[in-house]
């Protein structure tokens, strides 16, 4: 196919009749060109436009799987929804996904998301991918919340949220699901875009984006800053700056190259006044990455893709400590850095008319460097992953997905995550889905090897974390029944998931009495990580979308969660009820009014163990598009939490009403 294209290019540039004939003969004889040799110049309509060969654009891996044939529950948040939601970051958008919990607290350095319970003070039970690149940081407990902040909402085409374990496709860490962010195609973001948002609580966001390119080469550069004063009651002022670059190159009809690079500098307030062990301070996280992807279309039903990425992260987190004599004042430092290199390959093809197979492998090398956290100069983990999923259309109305992932980690050995899911189209537009999926999360480096020691002048004063390394991977096993109904007459659809999730060996903390021979005086107790007893989460969640009138849309999510066998701490992390509603009204002239209402039952975030009362919040946004000359603009006003302040993350942290205005101009 590649040769065929080159041939066309030669034919398009012949200068004399004879040369043209010669080249044409060469093409026809050597490459058996079907129908016509294609001359690319001049560009005036002819029969060539009907008979010339075209590249396979929508090859098998380019085609989105229909939502009623995916082997799990998927919620899609598209650009329209992102715009009308009034959200300022990706975490904020997860309020629109059934079963999710969101916190605006940046105490762990960035806003948090969790699914079916706040099982950690950081977001470490889901995989977050930005254009296939994992932003799961191996530093400390493992975390995706900083990674989620590394790109601008304006660059996002859509977010596909896979609810429930998808380790089969995305490896360990996708134990409770995947937030799959797909950025906009650079061909669609040509030109200059400028956006400014300002308002209450120090909200101050700016964005500049420029996109350019032609003839298969397209580029985009986006720079943004975001900042606000955070939750009241918390030392939570935060600001960040992101720069992201993307270059796409299609040298021919079958190959695609994509290059991405970026930098994110995030500052977040943390700590508490009057706590000398955790004083108010600013934590800085820096991210740098580059990513190179290559994809070749082998045929309409076959693709080969390879990807390499390198990510560096570093964290600056220190504060002065005043000590009694004879010690002098010193600095407590929790900083460090991490990096990873990932090489992956994926092959998609149809082994038969009713089959589609995706298989591939990944090599991942992770380094964590932090003497303060690990009492070692550097630690390394190697992952090897093999995965495969076979889609078998047993009958036009029955689709079976069977797959597994086998992953070996140098830290915790080998593990697998099989999945079997059957989608049954009862009638056109009505689908039942049932099956089982397993996932696992290997302990993070911190859970496996933490050792925080306070040493001054060579004297060990305190040891707070001593991970003995006995902790084993967490295992999730989910059984689910899903129903997807599409009701064209009512202009509505429903996505229902009823599930039972068994969680074995969830990682928790336990006190560890330091051995008597320690130099510590008096003997102290440190924190170790252990596996907790098994428990079960049962529940149901749904998303209802209805077009109430030609210009009125409603989105309604609800989730009900119950647990069996969870200890009191874990039980308190699972909100029994949550719901969200988004009502969107479009007016003549394009103005859009959206009303969002979000409720979450009482819950706590693990690691903090402070019960946060049930919350409710109402947001209102009015957006107005208009044109000035050739520029497309939108002005919008958003009020978040119109009602009373509510507690977030901790009972004492409050989300106050805040209003902000934004102006976006596309030149």
């Amino acid at each position, binding site marked *: 196919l590649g040769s065929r294209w080159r041939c066309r290019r030669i034919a398009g540039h012949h200068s004399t*009749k004879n040369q043209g004939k010669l080249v*044409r003969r060469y093409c*026809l004889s050597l490459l058996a*060109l*079907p*129908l*016509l*040799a*294609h001359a*690319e110049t001049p*560009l*005036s*309509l*002819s*029969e060539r*436009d*009907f*008979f*010339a*060969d*075209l*590249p*396979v*654009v*929508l090859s*098998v891996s*380019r*085609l*989105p*799987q*229909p*939502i*009623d*044939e995916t082997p799990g529950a998927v919620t899609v948040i598209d650009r329209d929804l992102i715009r009308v939601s009034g959200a300022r970051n990706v975490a904020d958008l997860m309020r629109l996904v059934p079963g999710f919990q969101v916190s605006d607290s940046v105490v762990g350095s960035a806003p948090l998301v969790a699914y079916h319970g706040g099982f950690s003070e950081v977001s470490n039970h889901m995989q977050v991918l930005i254009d296939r690149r994992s932003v799961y940081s191996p530093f400390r407990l493992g975390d995706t919340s900083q990674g989620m902040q590394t790109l601008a909402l304006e660059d996002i*085409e*859509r977010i596909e949220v896979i609810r429930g374990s998808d380790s089969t496709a995305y490896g360990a860490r996708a134990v409770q699901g995947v937030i799959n962010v797909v950025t906009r*195609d650079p*061909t*669609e973001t*040509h030109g200059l875009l400028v956006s400014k948002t300002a308002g209450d609580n120090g909200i101050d966001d700016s964005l500049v984006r420029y996109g350019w390119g*032609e*003839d*298969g080469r397209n580029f985009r550069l986006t720079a943004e800053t975001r900042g606000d004063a955070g939750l009241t009651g918390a030392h939570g002022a935060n600001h960040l700056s992101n720069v992201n670059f993307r270059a796409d190159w*299609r040298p021919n*009809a079958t190959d695609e190259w994509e290059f991405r690079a970026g930098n994110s500098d995030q500052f977040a307030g943390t700590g508490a006044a009057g706590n000398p062990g955790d004083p108010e301070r600013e934590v800085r996280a820096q991210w740098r990455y580059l990513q190179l992807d290559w994809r070749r279309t082998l045929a*309409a*039903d076959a693709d080969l893709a390879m990807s390499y990425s390198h990510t560096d992260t570093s964290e600056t987190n220190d504060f002065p400590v005043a000590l009694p004599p004879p010690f002098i004042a010193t600095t407590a430092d929790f900083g460090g850095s991490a990096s990873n290199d990932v090489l992956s390959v994926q092959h998609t093809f149809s082994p038969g008319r009713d089959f589609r197979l995706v298989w591939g492998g990944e090599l991942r090398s992770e380094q964590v460097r932090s003497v303060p956290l690990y009492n070692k100069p550097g630690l390394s983990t190697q992952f090897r992953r093999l995965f495969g999923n076979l889609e078998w259309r047993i009958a036009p109305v029955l689709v079976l997905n069977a797959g597994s992932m086998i992953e070996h980690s140098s830290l915790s050995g080998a593990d697998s995550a099989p999945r079997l899911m059957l989608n049954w189209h009862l009638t*056109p537009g009505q689908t039942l889905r049932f099956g089982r999926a397993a996932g696992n999360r290997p302990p993070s480096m911190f859970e496996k090897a933490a050792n925080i020691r306070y040493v001054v002048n060579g004297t060990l004063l305190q040891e707070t974390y001593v991970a003995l390394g006995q902790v084993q991977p967490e295992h999730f096993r989910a059984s689910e029944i899903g129903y997807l109904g599409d009701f*064209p007459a009512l202009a509505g659809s429903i996505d229902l998931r009823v599930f039972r999730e068994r969680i074995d060996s969830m990682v928790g903390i336990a006190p560890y009495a330091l051995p008597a021979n320690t130099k510590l005086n008096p003997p102290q107790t440190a924190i170790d990580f252990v596996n907790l007893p098994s428990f079960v989460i049962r529940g149901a969640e749904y998303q209802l979308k209805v077009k109430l009138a030609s210009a009125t849309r409603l989105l309604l999510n609800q989730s009900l969660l119950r647990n069996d066998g969870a200890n009191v701490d874990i039980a308190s992390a699972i909100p029994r009820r949550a719901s969200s509603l988004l009502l969107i009204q479009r007016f003549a002239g394009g103005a859009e009014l959206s009303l969002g209402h979000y409720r979450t039952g009482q819950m706590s975030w693990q690691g903090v163990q402070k019960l946060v009362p049930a919350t409710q919040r109402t947001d209102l946004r009015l957006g107005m598009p208009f044109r000035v000359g050739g520029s497309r603009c939108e002005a919008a006003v958003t009020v978040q939490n119109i009602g009373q302040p509510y507690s977030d993350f901790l009972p004492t942290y409050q989300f106050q009403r805040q209003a902000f205005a934004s102006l976006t101009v596309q030149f």
Partner: protein
Amino acid sequence: MMLFRRHLQAAMLLMLSWPGAPCAVTNGIVTLASESGGAYAEVISTMRAELKGGNVEMTELSDADAVIDAQPMLAVAVGAQACQTLVENSQRPPLLCTLLPRAAFERIAAADRVPSVPISAQLLDQPVQRQMALIRLALPRKKRVGVLLGAESATFENGLAGAAKQHGLTLTVARISTAADLSEGLLRLLADSDLLLAVPDSQVFNSGTIQNILRATIARGIPSVGFSPAYVRAGTAIGIYATPAMIGTQTGQLVRRILLSGNWPAPQPPSDFEIGVNRAVARSLSIDVGDPATLKRRLEAAGATP
């Protein structure tokens, strides 16, 4: 004189159709093809078959002067370039152009140096009525038909709008005047369309733009309707088109009709058609368009065939 000429034409046709007709009829029918092989050869061979193997001479484009010198009763130009080459010659014979799009023929015919000499065409474009009928049959829930119209297709807007209206559809149009307009025009169009109907226009649809267009449609869950098998293969959910063999057969019929009647009809759209379905794309879009043979039968039964 006219009567004599008609008799002569009938006699010529008889000679052409007669199995034992002499091989060298210098002033019979001469074909000039833009290129050899491929679709051109298929058109000529099926046209010959339709004319019962009569004496149809083939000439290569480089020998276009030979066509003029032969002074044939009728020349058949296969492809736009062949058509243009003959039209540009003031000595051209009566000319039937085939295997070319309507816009190309109209552009070429507008520069005709001898309008008094008959000229007509067998076009490639499917009638818009048939395209709209197909959309109604295959994609009954898609009511807003989006089209991208450039300089070569701008004149089709009224015809498209009228046909859409007759089938209970609405037409949304993005006019593309420069290549730079395409991206913005496409995104604007897709925001107000349920499907995209590809209309032949080399500035809008070509091998360089098709990737962006089809990716943008699939990302928005919007099916496209193409005008060639290549489009279906590239990623339109469905396509309706005439094959070279269909064009060749119909060209042969047109030649016979002209020679028998002496009347030159207006440029003809294809009477026959084929439907292509990209199952993977249709499945991805959760649309069930049925199989191509059934669709063709239903479309013919619906009376969309002129």
